[in-house]
């Protein structure tokens, strides 16, 4: 194990099932993260803070009191860019930059130094907001989210801005959903429960797992008499991607945070070992160590939506398993 300074954190997105159903409060989410030694907290203000974008002083006081109480640190906030806020017209460039400025102010108020810029944020908005981010001492990191990857024209446009401006505020936030090596079985099994034709499900899963051409899968489902469930599953197969995790290496100076997406953490009852079913973290983490990444691996559990119809969702246990894996891979 090479020396590294990678830290562990949780995006509270991971507990969305419990938060939605009000079986966990925001404080419960922070406590759960602290309990598993995941010290860095990532929050989606629009998800977790009623009254957004207005944060009361009382909320901010509670927030910092929880950090102290549970031994956690605010690390990142996630912004959205509602370009379609008004019916019938798009936000202007100035309005988009103003929206990012607002979210920079919120991150600063919550004590987070990193802001996730959602994938639809245009490069010119990143460029326009960079000076304010620099002034406030925060980094604005574009999420590299499937189906995008480091060679994609949309990402290349962003990289052009980052390299040309050399703004220390701009960078990238890889989402590990770009490294889905095999199709998440929680997704294909859900399709089967929803009545999908098993042969067509197999076709989709095999095409994906062989890293075959998924572009026309939706059409093929249609040719093979698939309905909405099969076509929907095919669409999912075009929205996961597998690329070599080493594709992050040339961009390491820009990478400030990792969204550690996952769909299903398995547990070997005999050995106690935990692993992600479809994302090879045992290949990813060494790449981050090799590249000198020194930020947070921030859990992003997204399996709840695929199992909630048939199984109890236990997001805390899923995140706990992911952190047991991280602790092992990081040599803790």
């Amino acid at each position, binding site marked *: 194990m090479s020396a590294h300074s990678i830290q562990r954190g949780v995006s509270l997105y991971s507990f*969305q099932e419990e938060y939605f159903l009000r079986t966990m409060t925001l404080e419960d989410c922070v406590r759960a993260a602290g309990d598993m030694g995941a010290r860095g907290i990532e929050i989606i203000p*629009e998800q977790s803070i*009623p009254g957004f974008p207005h944060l009361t002083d009382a909320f901010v006081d509670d927030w910092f009191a929880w950090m102290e109480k549970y031994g956690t640190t605010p690390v990142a906030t996630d912004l959205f860019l509602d370009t379609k*806020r008004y019916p019938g017209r798009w936000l202007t460039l100035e309005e988009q930059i103003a929206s990012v400025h607002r979210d920079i102010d919120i991150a600063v108020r919550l004590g987070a130094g990193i802001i996730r810029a959602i994938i639809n944020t245009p490069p010119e908005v990143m460029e326009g907001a960079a000076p304010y981010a620099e002034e406030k001492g925060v980094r604005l990191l574009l999420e590299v989210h499937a189906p995008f990857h480091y060679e994609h024209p949309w990402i290349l446009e962003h990289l052009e801005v980052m390299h040309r401006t050399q703004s220390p505020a701009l960078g990238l936030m890889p989402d590990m959903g770009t490294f889905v090596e095999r199709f998440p079985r929680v997704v294909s099994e859900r399709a089967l429960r929803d009545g999908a034709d098993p042969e067509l499900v197999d076709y989709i899963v095999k095409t994906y797992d062989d890293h075959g051409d998924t572009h026309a899968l939706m059409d093929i489902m249609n040719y093979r008499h698939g309905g909405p469930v099969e076509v929907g599953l095919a669409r999912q197969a075009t929205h996961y991607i597998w690329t070599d995790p080493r594709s992050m290496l040339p961009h390491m100076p820009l990478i400030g945070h990792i969204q550690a997406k996952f769909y299903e953490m398995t547990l070997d009852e005999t050995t106690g070992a935990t692993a992600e079913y479809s994302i090879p973290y045992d290949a990813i983490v060494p790449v981050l160590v090799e590249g000198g990444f020194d930020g947070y691996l921030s859990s992003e559990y997204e399996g709840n939506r695929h199992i909630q119809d048939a199984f109890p969702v236990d997001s805390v246990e899923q995140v706990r398993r992911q952190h047991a894996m991280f602790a092992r891979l990081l040599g803790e």
Partner: protein
Amino acid sequence: MFDQYIVCEDGFRTRDDGHPGGVVEVRMPYYRGLGLSMVEAVDLVLDGTPVPPSRTTFTVHGTTYPFDQLPSVLDDRWEMGERAQLAFETDEPLAPGEHDVAVSVRLRISYMPVPGGGRDAKRLTLPAGAAA
């Protein structure tokens, strides 16, 4: 992603303003709150018959809006997991007992090329003795 939770199983009741009709509690099938100008529709089908949006109103945290007003509401939100009250008028008072309630939510989500949202249908029971 939260379609199955749109229609709340409890809270189905008659209106309290003396008009015939009812109230069903609904949640947004999305993982964050959304400004009301981006809530394009919360359509109700009661016992197989669509209720026109003009006969429904939408209430979040105590503030009630007619649906034709939502596109211009820029300073209020439907919070994540929040139970909103979808109130509707009918010609005749609702009979106590079971009713089929189907709700379809359409959201304008900026990073998606197609409308977001979802749909849910449940059989709800209007408590006996609660009918107007």
